[in-house]
């Protein structure tokens, strides 16, 4: 078991790992998607670089720096996170990892697809949380919007609950999944239809399917997706933390762009440092 698992390898996550590893805690950083930092062409407002530096270079240096002091930094997509009270279980397509503390630093990317009707039907058939709401669709026909590993993971959560599931890729390539009650439809979606609750999906080509519920699992799971399943309080999809970077869930910290506020490297570095130091205190205090 790791002492600390950090999801996200941007400046917040990597800085947290520098502190926890140097604090003698066995630390793993898991990352997958392109970081917000990598997309910054040239950074001139961060301390210590006389000619500025590209976001991509700074990102790579950070990962190497963490590896050099012994942090395990692994490129694997996290599809599921479980809070088992004594420890956290982190699932990737390749396997599982466990830790005593979890630090979320997944950036501020929002995964909500821009499809007409999604917001209107939130809580009325549109859900972001299979483990919370799957129950409502027992033996019904449901859909999952998404096409990647996360969509497959969410579909697997629902396979034994729903009567049948249709994965709607919305124009993306179909994922690989084999189950008798799972179909895949790659057509582009026009809108979600229904009176007071979800009744179906209309595609751009004018055809429709009936569905009782829609679970959103587009792209790679981000902080807001994990937060919903773990019971972490968010505000407009930003994770709510206190001054110690603690969330409302014991043992889970968050730092960097996923907590909202200034989307700057300097703010992410501060929050990462604070989360790392507080994680060390937490583990020592709880004698873990």
């Amino acid at each position, binding site marked *: 078991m790791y002492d600390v698992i950090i999801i996200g390898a941007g400046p917040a996550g990597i800085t947290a790992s520098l502190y926890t590893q140097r604090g003698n805690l066995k630390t793993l950083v898991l990352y997958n998607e392109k970081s917000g930092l990598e997309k910054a062409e040239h950074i001139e407002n961060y301390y210590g670089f006389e000619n500025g530096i590209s976001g991509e270079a700074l990102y790579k240096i950070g990962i190497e720096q963490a590896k050099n002091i012994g942090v395990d930094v692994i490129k694997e997509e996290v599809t599921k996170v479980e*809070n088992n009270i004594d420890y956290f279980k982190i699932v990737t397509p390749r396997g599982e990892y466990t830790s005593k503390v979890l630090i979320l630093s997944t950036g501020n990317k929002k995964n909500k697809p821009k499809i007409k009707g999604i917001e209107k039907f*939130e*809580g*009325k*058939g549109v*859900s*972001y*949380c299979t*483990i*919370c*709401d799957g*129950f*409502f669709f027992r033996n019904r026909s449901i859909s999952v919007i998404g096409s990647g590993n996360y969509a497959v993971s969410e579909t697997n959560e629902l396979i034994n609950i729903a009567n049948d599931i249709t994965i709607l890729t919305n124009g993306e390539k179909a994922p690989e999944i084999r189950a008798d009650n799972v179909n895949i439809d790659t057509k582009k979606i026009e809108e979600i239809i229904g009176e*007071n*609750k979800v009744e179906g999906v209309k595609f751009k080509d004018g055809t429709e399917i009936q569905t009782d*519920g829609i679970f959103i699992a587009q792209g790679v799971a981000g902080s807001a997706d994990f937060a*919903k*399943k*773990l*019971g*972490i*309080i*968010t*505000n407009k999809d930003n994770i*709510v933390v206190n001054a110690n970077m603690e969330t*409302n*869930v014991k043992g889970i910290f968050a730092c960097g762009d996923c907590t909202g506020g200034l989307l700057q490297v300097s703010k992410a570095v501060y929050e990462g440092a604070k989360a790392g130091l507080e994680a060390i205190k937490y583990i020592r205090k709880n004698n873990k």
Partner: protein
Amino acid sequence: MAVLKITQENFEEEVSKSNIPVIIDFYADWCGPCKMMSPIIDNIAEELGESVKVGKVNIDDNKNLAMQFGIMSIPTVIIFKEGKAEKTFVGLRDKEEILNGLK
């Protein structure tokens, strides 16, 4: 005020006929985020005293109530005023947001 256990049997008496606003938390025992909502609701009940009624509905034991209010996602918190569902919050919310909903 104590947090009331609301059921199909006492809903009319405690919620429909209430002359003060009622905050109801629809939850289930197996739902992780509901466990996080629960202390927030307790805290609201403590803070607001006698001005507002606060209750919880276990949706497994009270399926008719869950159906009546179209609950398809939990936790869901509904604020009732004069017996009518005035405001609905789907998903985990912080205390402030729910208190703002009372205004």
